[in-house]
Structures are given as C-alpha cells and as structure tokens.
C-alpha cells in the first residue's frame, strides 16, 4: 500500500513553539518518504485543531498520521478519536511527544528542534508500519470477587450487590471485619467502631447475593478481565457453622491456650473458640494449628461435649473454582512489627504497646473490658507516652512513607486515655502533626486543649526499663532540650504496612506492588483504584495507609468501577497484542515461559497467543531468538525503523 502519512505539529501555544521551531519540523517532515501532508497548528487538541486533523485525513486520503505534541498519556485518546471521525483507524494515529520530552526540558532552540525532528520522524516511520486494529471483544461474567473482608471489602461487597451483582467475598480469617473490628472508638467523632461496623457485617451475612467464604484464600487465577476463573481454597471447616449454636460448651474443655489475635496478644483463647462475640459468620471455629492434632485419641474433648455434633475432625480443606468478571482486592494492612522497634523496647517490655493493642485496652470488648491498665501488673498507668511516626518516615531504618493515620489515632488514644484516667498525664512525641481531614485538626486541638495532652516535638532516642518505669529519652526540638520521662506505659504509633501475604496475593493475581509493598494503582492520579491488570481494582489500606472514611470511599469507587465494567455485554481489550509469525516459530516455548500472563501456549508445535490474555508487554519479543513473535504496532521492524530514523 502506498504510504500516505500526515504530520501535525502542535505549537501548544508557546509551550512547544517557544523552544521548538515547529514550522521547520513540519516543513522538513513534508519531504520525508510517504508524507503527503505536514502542517503546524497552534493548538492541535482544540476543537478547530481536531477539525483540521479530520479534514486533512479526508482531503489527503491519509492512511497514517502522527501528531507531534504533548505526552500520549494526555491526548492520545483525543487524537485517536479524531482519527476515527476522519475514518482513519484509531491505531493508525501515533503521538510524537515533543513537549514533555523535548520542548520543556531543553532551551536551545536549534538543539530542541533537531531532537523534535528525530522524535517526529521516528514516529512517522513507525506509523507507516502500523496496522489498523479493532479492539478485541470479550464476553463478561457478571459476578465479582472481593478479596479481604475488612471494612473496605465489606463496603465494596455491599455496594456491588446493591447494583444487582453477585459477589464472592473471600476472607482469610474466621470472621469478617478486619482491623476495624479491633478498634474501640474512632476519630474524629469517637463513635464506637463495632457499633458502626456490626450492622454492615450482619448485612453481609444476610445478603443472599454474597457468597461469603471465610478462612479462605485465593489460590490461583486464570482468565482475563470479564472472565476470570479463580480457585479458592477454604480451610477445613471442623465446626459446621450451620449446626453451631454458639453455646460455648466447647471452649472450657479445650486444654490449649494460645494468644488471641483479636486482642493482639493481650489475652489468650482456646484452640476452639469464637474469634469475637459479633463474629460473622457466627460460629465457633477450630484452630487447626493450635489443636492437639484433630485426633480423638489425643484429645477429642470438644467433639465429645458438642451436643449438636457440629464438630468433625475429618473435614478436609476444599478448593472451589469461581467464575468471576472483576475483582476488588482489599487485603488491608498490618502494623509494622514491634520487634523492629528495639530502641523503644518494642516486643521486649510488656508495657510498650502498639496502637492496636491500646485500642483493645480501651475497648469495652477488650481484654480489660475497657479499663486501661498495664499488662505487666494491671496497674493504671499515670504517665503515658505516645510516640508517633514509630517506623514511619524513616527511610534509613524503617518505612520511608508516612502512615497517614497515626497522628490522628494517637490524638484519639491520648484523648481516650484522659477519659479513662482523668488524673493521668499523656505525652506525645511527634515530628509534625498531619491532620488533614474534615474535623481532624479540631480533634487534635481538642486533645491538646481539653485533655491537657503535652505535645513534644522531637524524636525519642531510647526507651528502657528502670525501677519498674519506662524511661523515655527524647528531645524537644522546639525548646531545644533533652527530655526524660519516667512513664508507666509507652504506646508506639506503629507504621502501617501491607498485610502479610500481600506479596503473594499480588503475585497470584498478577498485579504490581509499589516500592513500599502496597498494591500499585495503575495511575497515581487518574487511576487510583485500578490495578495495573485490567479488571482488578484496589480498595482500602492494601493500596496505601488510609483511615476508615477514605477506605470506605475508595471501596465505593472500586465497586462503581466494577459495576461500570460489568454493565457491558462485552469488554474491549486492547488489540496491541502479540502475534506469532507461524512459519518462523519452532515451538521452543521460551515465550511461553517468559509471558507473565500465561497468554501463550503451544498449539500444534507453534506458539499461540490468547489475545484476550495478552497485555502486549513484549516479554516474548525480547526472548524469542528467532524473532518469530511481535507485538502489533510495536513490531521489531518498527523499532528498527525508529532507530534508523533517529540515527540517520
């Protein structure tokens, strides 16, 4: 086919034209092979600009065009849409980025023009080998999977069912609720966490559109957006939730006591137990690891006492496969391990607690039924020190990022402490206070003013035990003095980190993680709830530290993305996928091994690409020694042409 390529060079007002001689670029390109139209224009993306493009396509019968303008992330879609309006396939339009990658970063006109020419010329050579492509249509399963049933997962699941979708809600613990279940009151309004959470948990259990699977984890996934197949492994269900009457006859007979995770280790529980009074599903559960061996010969006491015969040691783990259209991942957070905070006595002194443990101390359902007392001697602490940013914002030793909520929950903790111990004194060491949020700043102010909390700006260098007290050595940088406090209790506002197993689930679901290990959003601004893999969305603290309101809104956002996605009969998958040149392929399977999406399989001894699974990353291209595979519209020929255009 004779090449009829159009080139459009944008001034972007003065943004480009100030450093790039756009006229020259347009003129020189007009001389290039196959270029039949080349012009510059003040604002390509404006309405008249786009009209000019559309007209030029028609008038010159263009079969390819390059818009030399800003980054393709901004206007690729604009121009591809314009292209379609001009009856030119969207994929015959390419963007040459001469603004961000040229005009804005250079100031010498001659040099920048030279580079703009190369960039544009390379794009022209590329587009001349572009294929017209149509998006690949994919049918949809109208069913969603939510992984992790903290508040994020619960909210997302409920929102999804509101839209009439079926949901599979997978939670690895025995009850849903996540970390919020452990909180006592919540800032800034100090309403009781469980009071606002329980109704939602109950809605989940009552909701016929939700298939709740606790003590379950995603084992593997195959398929693609709209058509995932997910294998879910459920631990052996030794206690039948249908039969269990919550009589609590079993726990007294159980000889094993282990730390209770819901009390963050402040209390113990039995091997057979109910995690929480309000647990959903409401049932006792048997901790396989703690149990003496599921063996009636060794123990078998609980089975004996259970009247209804709800206990069965012979139950096996089950794996079910679910067909799923889209996924919300809300696997939440864990607190950064206390053992890392050796200098603060974390993990060493019983009276150095983390934030969640303190929540449990404050909580009426907690170990002390809401009385704040030292775990070591059950004395009421009179002097209490809170250390903020414990493990956060410390790139050298701990986490580089700000955990965002610690300022707020520490203020909450100090306030709650004053409510429980009016004659006590609370100190807070902080670096600075970050209280952005509705009513948050006021909340912090109140804790200072009404509750007499002493805020000390500075770092704590060491906490050690001396004479039954915890000596807190710190500096007050505002006053410029060293500070020593003999505290009864120290609470570390530990950093939030991705919950254990985030790496694994990310790997299983083939979604990326950011440098801190949180699940990576597709775009930090424009796609904050999308993961990098189509059809998988993120919600809650798994994506980054956040508080409940933010978690809930993100969950809603993720849900609405899923709803939008699954509202279509067919999904459009990008057609820039890999294509095998059959006669060249020898079936060596290197591409099969390299493909991160398992999109390639051998069929009759030749590699075959499942276009719907293929994301067009080109990992296969990079490994095929025979050059038998290419990604459409970024073929090796095209890259070769670009290299030669640049080096010419």
């Amino acid at each position: 086919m004779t090449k009829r390529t159009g080139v459009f060079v944008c001034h972007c007002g003065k943004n480009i034209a100030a450093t790039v001689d756009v006229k020259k670029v347009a003129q020189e390109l007009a001389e290039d092979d196959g270029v039949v139209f080349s012009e510059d224009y003040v604002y390509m993306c404006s309405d008249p600009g786009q009209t000019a493009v559309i007209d030029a396509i028609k008038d010159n019968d263009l079969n390819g065009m390059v818009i030399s303008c800003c980054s393709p992330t901004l206007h690729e879609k604009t121009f591809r849409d314009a292209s379609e309006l001009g009856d030119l396939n969207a994929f015959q339009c390419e963007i040459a980025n001469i603004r961000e990658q040229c005009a804005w970063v250079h100031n010498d006109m001659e040099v920048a023009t030279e580079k703009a020419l190369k960039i544009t010329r390379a794009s022209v050579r590329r587009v001349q080998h572009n294929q017209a492509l149509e998006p690949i249509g994919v049918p949809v399963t109208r069913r969603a999977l939510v992984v992790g049933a903290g508040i994020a997962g619960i909210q997302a699941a409920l929102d999804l069912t509101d839209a009439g979708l079926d949901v599979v809600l997978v939670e690895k613990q025995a009850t849903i609720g996540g970390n919020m279940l452990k909180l006592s009151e919540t800032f800034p309004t100090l309403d009781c966490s469980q009071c606002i959470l329980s109704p939602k948990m109950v809605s989940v259990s009552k909701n016929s559109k939700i298939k709740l699977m606790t003590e379950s984890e995603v084992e593997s996934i195959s398929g693609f957006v709209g058509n995932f197949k997910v294998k879910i492994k459920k631990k052996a269900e030794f206690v039948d939730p249908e039969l269990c009457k919550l009589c609590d006859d079993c726990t007294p007979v159980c000889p094993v006591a282990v730390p209770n995770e819901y009390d963050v280790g402040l209390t113990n529980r039995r091997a057979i137990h109910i995690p929480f009074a309000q647990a959903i599903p409401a049932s006792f559960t048997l901790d396989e690891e703690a149990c003496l061996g599921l063996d009636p010969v060794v123990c078998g006491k609980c089975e004996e006492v259970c009247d209804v015969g709800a206990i069965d040691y012979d139950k096996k783990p089950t794996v079910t496969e679910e067909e799923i259209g889209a996924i919300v991942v809300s696997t939440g957070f864990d607190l950064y391990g206390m053992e890392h905070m050796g200098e603060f006595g974390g993990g060493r002194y019983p009276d150095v607690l983390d934030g969640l443990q303190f929540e449990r101390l404050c909580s009426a359902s907690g170990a002390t039924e809401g009385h704040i007392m030292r775990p070591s001697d059950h004395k009421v602490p009179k002097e209490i020190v809170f250390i903020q940013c414990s493990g956060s914002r410390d790139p050298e030793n701990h986490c580089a990022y700000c955990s965002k909520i610690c300022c707020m929950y520490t203020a909450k903790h100090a306030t709650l402490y004053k409510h429980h111990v009016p004659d006590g004194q609370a100190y807070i060491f902080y670096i600075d206070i970050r209280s952005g949020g509705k009513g948050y700043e006021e909340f912090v102010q109140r804790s200072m003013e009404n509750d007499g909390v002493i805020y000390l700006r500075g770092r704590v260098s060491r906490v050690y035990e001396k004479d039954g007290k915890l000596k807190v050595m710190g500096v007050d940088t505002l006053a410029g003095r060293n500070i020593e406090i003999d505290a009864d209790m120290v609470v570390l506002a530990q950093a939030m980190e991705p919950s254990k197993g985030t790496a694994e689930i990310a790997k299983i679901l083939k979604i990326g993680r950011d440098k801190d290990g949180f699940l990576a959003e597709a775009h930090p601004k424009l796609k904050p709830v999308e993961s990098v893999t189509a059809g998988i969305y993120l919600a809650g603290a798994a994506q980054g530290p956040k508080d409940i309101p933010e978690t809930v809104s993100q969950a809603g956002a993720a849900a609405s993305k899923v709803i939008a996605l699954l509202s279509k009969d067919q999904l459009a998958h990008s057609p820039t996928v890999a294509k095998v040149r059959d006669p060249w392929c020898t079936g060596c399977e290197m591409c099969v091994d390299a493909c991160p999406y398992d999109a390639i399989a051998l069929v009759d001894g030749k590699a075959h690409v499942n276009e719907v699974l293929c994301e067009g990353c080109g990992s296969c291209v990079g490994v095929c020694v025979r050059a038998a595979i290419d990604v459409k519209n970024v073929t090796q020929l095209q890259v070769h042409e670009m290299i030669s255009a640049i080096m010419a």
Partner: protein
Amino acid sequence: MEKILNQEKLREWVDMLDDCEVYAPAFADSVWNFARIEAGTDIDLSHTNTIGSVKEFVFPQREVFFRFEKKDGVPVLTPTLPDPKPTVVFGVRPCDGRGMPRNDTVFNKEFVDPYYWARRDKLTLIGLACNLPHSPNCFCQSVGGSPHSEDGLDVLMTDLGDRFHVKGITVKGVEAMERGRDAFDAVRDGDQAEVEKVHDTSRSFPQRPLGNLDAIPEAIRENFDSPLWADMAQHCIGCGICTFLCPTCHCFDINDEVISPTTGEGERVRTWDNCQFPDFTMHTSGHNPRADLGSRLRQRVSHKFLYFVENHKTQQCTGCGRCITECPVGIDIVAVLERVSQ
C-alpha cells in the same frame, strides 16, 4: 629472465619494491594467510598454502561500486573505482597462480568488470614452486597443473635450499625483478639442472588421481539426475567454506547499504556469495531451482568440471585442495568426482 637470488637477498628485493604494497604469507591464528609486509625482514616463505587465495587481491570480500545520495530530489551516483597502489604478492603457490587466468576469463568475458581489472592491472604475483606438495589433498597435476606451473604467475621462484631460482614470466614480473636488480645474481651452470631436479622430485610425489580428466564432463552430465548428489551431500552443512576459499570461485551478491534513510545516502556493494548458500538461487517467490544440498554440490562440481570446461575448455579447479582440507565434514571433491565417474 632468469636469475638467482640468495636466500638472504630476498629481503633486499622486497625492500626495493618500496613503492608497492607487498604481501607475503604470514602464520597467524594458526593459519597461513597473506599479510602486508612492512619490511623485507618480515618475509617468511616456509608456508604451506594460505587459507585465503590470491583472488582476494582482485576480488575483495567487499567492493563498493558507487555511492548514491539524493541532491534536490535527484539521485547522484559517485562511482568508487579502486585505484590501488601497485601490489606485489610473494609466495603465491602455482595452484593459486593458475586460478588467476580463470578469474580473468570470468571478469572479461562479454562484459569487462572495471573493478576487478582496476586491481588486477596493478597486481604482480610472485610464485613459489612447491618442492613438496604441502598436503595430501593437493592434486594440481591431476587437473593439468604442476607444482611449478607458471600459468598465471608473473614470476616463479624455486627454492634451491640456500638460494632461489627466479624466473620472470610476464612483463610485470620482469619489471618487478628489474626493480630489485641489485639483489640478483646471474644463473650459473648447473642451476638449471638443479631446478629441474627439484621440479622433478616434487612432481614425482604421488598426488590424488582424478582418472581421465576428459571423461569427467560426460560422467557429470550423465549423472545430472542421479541420487548420488544427495547422498554425497548428506553431511554437507552448506557453509560455503569450499567456495569462499577456492581460488577460482567468484560468485557475488550485490546489495544496497543504506547510510541514511533520510538523506537517501548509501552504497551499492558487492560481497562474496556462493552456490552453497540456499538463498543464492532462491527467487522472491520462494521457488528455488537448487533447493537442496545435493543440487548445490552438483552445481559446484559441475561448474568446475563441466560447465567451465564447456565454456572455456579448461577446469575451474586448480587442485589446491583447500575445499577438501577445510570442509568441516570431510566432503572431498576428488572423492566426489571419483564416485561420479564410476
């Protein structure tokens, strides 16, 4: 012109050719090959046959025909005819020497190849007779040559132990000898006899027989469609070493090498090619008249021992034995001819 050159005077002669580029065999990377000689002291004529043949001096691996570029939209061509310095090559074995006239024929017939001749005209070949065939694969005598053949050489030297007998054969050769006049001594009584003796001895060394040379063309012709070829080429890997190293193989490819796709600059280049490569004869359509190794072996052998004979009345093989010795899988043109002749 016949002269005597004492062994130690050889360098003097070389030094007196200082306005020429002088090449002589050198042993490097475990092979003998022709290398530029800077001074007479570098010369070493203890060589066996060089791996590359003298054809490289007239038919280099890469020859630029012309440069092209676009000026104001019009192609401008600049021919790049070589203009080499006069070149003298020492130590050319007679089999290589015999290759030259055969190449001359090819580059002269019907159309004269200016690139070849620009180099050829400046080339003087100083041969060295073989006192002993250097390899069991030599068969120069079986193809009508001899270890002291003068065919194609400008000068023939014969090693008499402490001295060389040097014979100018062509005008160019005599000229080269004239230039080194002072280094030479006159031929004395008995020298001639000694030369004869050396030549006789080397001729008497057994060489691989080819049988009746005249009967070979007919034998090949008869066997054109024989399955023999495929059988004999069974282990051929199609590498083309046999032809690249052959002093008489001259096939080439012509390609455009682009320097800048934007300015349309580039060069049209001739490179070596040969009939053992699959794409040599493959049409764009994929059709290939010589698609298998058997037919390609047949082409190589037929070209040398049938077609060339039909066209030019002589074999296009000088019995240097390179294709036999260097074939990585032991394909042996003498054995092939033997089988075909049976």
